[in-house]
Each structure stands twice: as C-alpha cells, then as structure tokens.
C-alpha cells in the first residue's frame, strides 16, 4: 500500500473521508447494477469530472487503468463467443455474438468507471483517515482494525520475509524446482506466520498497556464543513441521476 494519490491539496483531498467512502460506495453500487449504456456513460463522465477535481498525476492513473483493463481484455476474448445470442459478425468460422459484445462493453465501462471513482474519491485519503472515517461511520470495529493494522504491519512482515530469505541465501540457498526448495519455502512461510502471530500478540499487549479499549481514535477531527455539504449534495444528485436514467422509462432507453 503506497498511498501514492493520498498526498495533495485538491478539493477532493480535503473532503471529509466519511463522505468520500459513502459516495464511492453508493456510486459503485449504482454502476454495478446499471445496464443501460446511457446511465453508464453518465457514470464514466462523473468519474472523469471527479478525477479532474482531484488533480492527480495522469501517468499513475494510466498505470492503474492498464492493470484493470488487463483483466477486462479476458472478457472481450471469452464473452463474445460464449454468450448465446444473435451473431453480429464472423471471424473466420467463429460467430461473435451481439449480446456477448454488449456484455463485455458494459463490464469494461463499469469497471473503469468504478476504478476511476475510487481513485478520485477513496485513494485521495490516507489509509489512516479512511480508517478513522470508517470508524465514525460505525462500520464494524474489527474491519477498521484489520485495515489499519494490516497497513502498518504489512511492511514489517515484508521486511521479516526479506530477512529470512537473506538468511537462506547467505547459506547458499538457490531456488530450484525440487523438493528442497519447496520445503524451504514452506518453512519460510510457516515461520513468517508464527512470527506474525507472536508479533500480533505483543502489539496487542503494547496497546493494552497504553489504555486501548477496542476503539481507535484519530487525531483528525471530523467536522462537516459547508463545502462538504455542497459536495455531498452534488454527489448525491449525480448518483440519483444515474439511477433515474437507469430505471425510469424515458427517451434514454
């Protein structure tokens, strides 16, 4: 977790994390269940507008999109030939189904819209303030703790893994395709789990010693500013419009 987008001072960076979590969730749900291209188009537009407000480096966003669309390509390969329907065109003897192509197109638009919205809304907050926001939203404490502590100790566990690997390498370990290699990796992973569990125990003790009672408090004070209200209204309206286009009979269908 590198939090590459969390640093910045755009209006989206300064938005209350609670609002961002709620808005991103609402938007993704609406987008996920929508099927009309008109509604999905509006969603992509909204995501792009949000992205513009977030003023993030384009290169990094492009990298994320390439990653997501790597998976999406699989849909374009599989769906047009596997979904039953009416053939739209033929590549050699293979018919490409109209329904399959449409489905692939929908999935592409949906996943990109959701990813862009999450980049603009969620990744512009640090993990810590998101955790604090989730806490304030009364999401289960366990979920919040998992997020925050994973974030903190992922690095330590990775370091521990590197240390163990180095210890093996300095004694002449070279990974090969044989039982000795598999066994070594199995030991390595096992010891990593044991150490992680022991560490979790010690961390919990350290937290108890400083009066931890099952709740994380954040130094950041959450106050809904008039600006937050404006954004909340705007985002709410946008999500509602996507919903209306999707479910109301009208000229868009």
């Amino acid at each position: 977790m590198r939090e590459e987008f969390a640093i910045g001072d755009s209006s989206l960076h300064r938005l209350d994390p609670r609002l961002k979590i709620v808005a991103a969730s609402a938007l993704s749900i609406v987008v996920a269940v929508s099927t009309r291209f008109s509604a999905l188009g509006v969603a992509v537009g909204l995501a792009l507008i949000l992205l513009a407000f977030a003023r993030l480096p384009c290169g990094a966003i492009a990298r994320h999109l390439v990653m997501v669309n790597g998976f999406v390509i699989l849909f374009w390969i599989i769906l047009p030939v596997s979904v039953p329907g009416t053939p739209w065109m033929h590549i050699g003897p293979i018919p490409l189904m109209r329904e399959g192509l449409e489905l692939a197109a929908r999935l592409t638009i949906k996943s990109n819209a959701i990813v862009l919205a999450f980049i603009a809304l969620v990744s512009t907050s640090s993990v810590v303030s998101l955790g604090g926001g989730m806490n304030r939203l009364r999401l289960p404490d366990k979920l919040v703790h998992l997020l925050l502590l994973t974030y903190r100790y992922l690095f330590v566990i990775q370091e521990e893994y590197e240390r163990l690997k180095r210890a093996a390498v300095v004694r002449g370990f070279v990974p090969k395709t044989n039982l000795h290699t598999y066994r070594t990796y199995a030991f390595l992973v096992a010891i990593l789990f044991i150490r992680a569990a022991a560490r979790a125990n010690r961390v919990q003790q350290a937290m108890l010693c400083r009066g931890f009672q099952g709740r994380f408090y954040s130094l950041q004070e959450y106050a809904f500013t008039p600006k937050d209200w404006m954004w909340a209204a705007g985002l709410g309206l946008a999500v509602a419009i996507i919903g209306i286009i999707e479910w109301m009979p009208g000229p868009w269908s």
Partner: protein
Amino acid sequence: MVIELEDICFAYPRREPVLKGVSFRLQPREKIGLIGPNGSGKSTLLHIIMGLLQPSSGTVRLFGRQARTEKEFREVRTRIGLLFQNADDQLFSPTVLEDVAFGLLNMGIKPSQAKRDAIKTLEELHLERMADRVTHHLSGGEKKLVALATVLVMKPEILLLDEPTTGLDEATDQRIIEILNGIEAGYVIVSHEYDFLALTTRTVYSFRDGKIINNGDSSLLHSHYHSHPAGIVHHSHAQSLK
C-alpha cells in the same frame, strides 16, 4: 508502595517455571534495576506487573490495591508506562505524532489537546522534527526514543523499561540515560548491562533461577565488574575502591 509483588510464580505452558516465588516492592520515585541472564524471567515479571500475564500463584498489588482481573489492571495501566523490548511492537500508528497521541486519546483526551501534549513531549525529548515521519521508516534508535515518548506522554507514575538500550548506538544510549536521569517518576529497568544500570538506578536486584537473589547499591555491584570500553561516558566508582 507503588508496586508490591508477593511470592509470584509463573510458568509458560509445557516449560520449566521461570518465576519461583518472586517478592518485590517499589516505593514512589524509586529507581531500581533488575539484572539477570537471558530467559531468567525479567520480561515476564514486567508483563505480570502490567497484567498481561497471569501468575500461577502470588499476588500483585498496584498503588496499594490488589489487581487480579483484566478490569482491575485496566484501571491502573495508564498510570504505569511499559517500554517494550522491541520498539516495532509498540509503534503501530502510521505517523510518530499519532502514535505518541494514541495513549492520550485512549484516556479520553480531546484530539486537539492530545496533539498539543504529544508535540510538547516530542519537544522535550528533542524529537519534534520527527512528528510527521512514518514510524516504520525510522531507524532503530529513533524508534526507541519515539517509543519512550509514547510512554512518557501519558505522565506515568512509574515506568517499566525492558532492555531499553539493547542494540542501540552510544549516542542513543546517552540520550536515554539523560532522559531517564531527568524524569521524576520512579522506574524499574530490566537489563543485562551493568554500566547502564549503574548510571540510571540506585539499587540493582539480581535475578537468577527464577528468584531475586540479592540486591545492593548499584555502584557496589558495578565495582566487581569493570571495564572502560566507553571511557567518555560519565560514571562513578564504588566508594570502597576510592
């Protein structure tokens, strides 16, 4: 009496008992050291004082009241500060400032006030420049000092320090000695470094075979084992040798 342990016994599952009847008392503002080999149960003793481990027999009294249940320990825990052997266990917040404020927030102090107090403590330890640093990117010495700050910020009446200088360089060692000599609260230091205990404590108890076997003036204990690998470090010799 701040801490009173009576006849404490403790064994980890399927292992030889590590504590076999330890009795121990600490007065307010008393500064004492516990010395003993690895695995002699020094850390275990500190964890029993904090209620992190339950002794198999014996009683723990803290601030004049017996403590047995988690609830009873919880009430007094914030008045005792435990510095863990491994600073990585202690620092779990992403930034230094947040970690220092963690204990205060648990005590119900408002975020704005907690932030001010945390910054003040960092300033007292000359660590204010680290406030916004990410905890896992600090060096070993920096981590230790920040961990000490996270404990001191809660203004504990008593400190328990578990091997506070193990693996640290001389400069950080010196900083910790200065900080400890400058604080009013009493403390118990667990260590196996005579020189460090001689510089920071009055009395040193020796730990062997699960018991506290002798105790004495730390400078006397210091006198029968002496080398000067760190000649520039200020230290005092036992009276009898002068």
